[in-house]
């Protein structure tokens, strides 16, 4: 049993590191010829951020569902398979949020729709609590979907370039860029360290020993990362870096980018009108 657990932990670390390369750094989708791929990254960032902000402030389930549909539609127009998109957006983060939101129907007061008797305790499920739970999960799902859409359809260099052009502080862009670039480098280094450890083992080791060697590997990686960072800084200095990053600008905002941006932002207006009851909807949808 213990050996099985050890093997599972060990394998999962290796598998996570192997998958890391495939999942984090794939840009196959960003190179497809779809709608979002053809849009200037700055226009995409503006639209996605606007939609995320709207989703954060919306309370009605119908409006959140509308944004989710919009995200799915954009994904399909960008040649992302529905299955892949839903798996990517729903399986992990919204499921985690569901774990957080599950207690809401039981702790939020309001109209009781049902009650469960557990032993001698009667647990009430409130309508308001249930709605809050659904809202919360939907909001997380919408925000994750929109963010994933942006990242899937934009290569990392273009995204960084767009952020720099949008006057996001260069230091922030540089840190984000280098973090992304060196995530792989250090994941690879950790993977090699695990392989090196494995090659010197003659048999299974205990759980405690596994944890100890794991901790020392993480410590060694930290030291290496620090030293590597120092050398990268020297290499940058050697090529003229004096504290500010220069970029070669090759982004141009075309009429189609502006049209896309305007259309998507205009699509937010009916959602807000529904939210403030300015736009009539059938009563069963006004939850």
């Amino acid at each position, binding site marked *: 049993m213990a050996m099985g657990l050890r093997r599972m932990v060990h394998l999962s670390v290796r598998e996570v590191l192997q998958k890391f390369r495939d999942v984090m*750094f794939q840009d196959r989708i960003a190179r497809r010829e779809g709608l979002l791929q053809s849009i200037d990254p700055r226009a995409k960032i503006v639209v996605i951020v606007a939609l995320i902000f709207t989703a954060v402030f919306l309370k009605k389930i119908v409006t959140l569902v509308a944004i989710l549909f919009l995200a799915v539609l954009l994904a399909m127009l960008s040649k992302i398979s529905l299955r892949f998109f839903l798996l990517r957006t729903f399986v992990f983060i919204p499921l985690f949020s569901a774990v957080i939101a599950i207690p809401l129907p039981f702790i939020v007061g309001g109209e009781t729709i049902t009650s469960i008797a557990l032993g001698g305790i009667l647990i009430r499920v409130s309508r308001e609590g249930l709605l809050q739970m659904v809202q919360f999960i939907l909001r997380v799902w919408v925000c994750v979907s929109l963010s994933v859409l942006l990242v899937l359809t934009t290569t*990392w*260099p273009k995204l*960084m370039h767009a952020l720099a052009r949008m006057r996001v502080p260069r230091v922030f862009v540089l840190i984000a*860029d*280098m973090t*992304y*670039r*060196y995530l*792989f*480098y250090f994941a*690879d280094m950790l993977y090699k360290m695990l392989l090196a450890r494995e090659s010197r083992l003659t048999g299974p080791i205990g759980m405690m020993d596994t944890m100890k060697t794991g901790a020392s590997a993480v410590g060694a990686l930290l030291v290496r990362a620090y030293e*590597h960072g120092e*050398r*990268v800084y*020297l*290499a*940058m*200095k*050697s*090529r*003229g*870096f*004096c504290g500010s990053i*220069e*970029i*070669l600008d090759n982004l141009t905002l075309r009429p189609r980018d502006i049209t896309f941006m305007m259309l998507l932002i205009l699509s937010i207006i009916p959602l807000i009108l529904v939210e403030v009851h300015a736009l009539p909807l059938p009563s069963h949808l006004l939850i």
Partner: protein
Amino acid sequence: MRSTLFELRGVSYTYTNGTVALENVTFKIFEGENVAILGPNGGGKSTLLMIMDGLLEPTEGEVYFRGRKVDPKDEKFMFEMRKRVGMVFQDPDVALFSSTVWEDIIFGPLHMRLPREEVIRRGEWALRTLGIEHLKDRPPFQLSEGEKKKAAIASVLSIDPEVLLLDEPFINLDLRSQERLLALLREMSRSGKTLILATHDVNIVPLLADRVILLNKTVIADGSVREIFSRPELLKSANIRPPLVAVLFTELMKRNLVGDGVRVPLTVEEAVSAIVKMFDSKDKITKRSSPGRFSGLQDDSEH
């Protein structure tokens, strides 16, 4: 009379953990020279290059570039120096920190504040020169070690520096890439650039350098490639294995098996010429039917 490019006076460097990397290093490097800094691993070669590039400040001593003291705090001088001196780091992962190979290659020219057209022209030239046009839009972390090395070299070549500090530039390159880089460096040398190469690869040195500084924390010897490589015991004392052809001929000379006027060859080509010369002499001697110096060689081969 060539002007002095670098002058090091009593340079020492101790890392913060107490490790002594360099001790009292003194030498001059002249314009247009090809200098190999040859030494074992941990001999202080990389540290020395970083000090010469103004990236590290020596614990003791001074470095002068074109007669001016290299002071990392003097930003104006350092900016001008960086336009003239380019350094290729040993580890390409250190030099490739951008999202794409292209961004890394134009990083130098962009930060030298060159005009946009010139930045693009130099970037494209560097890609072409190293034969890596196909890697232009690739993220560096997706490259093989050899490709990374070429991209790292291209990122320095795009600066078009007068002086190239190269830290083990041939490591991780396949034969064809090594030959290509060697030809490129020779061409750069012919065009008047100064090459300073830190290496422990004795086979590359005779092909590129005309002077060797033997370094093992301190300067052990400084002379022409032939002077240094003709003394295998000197190389061995610095923990460097001499070129095998040089070892072979030194042994043959000790046994009096090499004709007069044959110098210790440093490359395979030189060794072939020397052997041809030896056999030519032997033929002449045999034709005269008189015992010659090469009889020993014949005896040996018969055994």
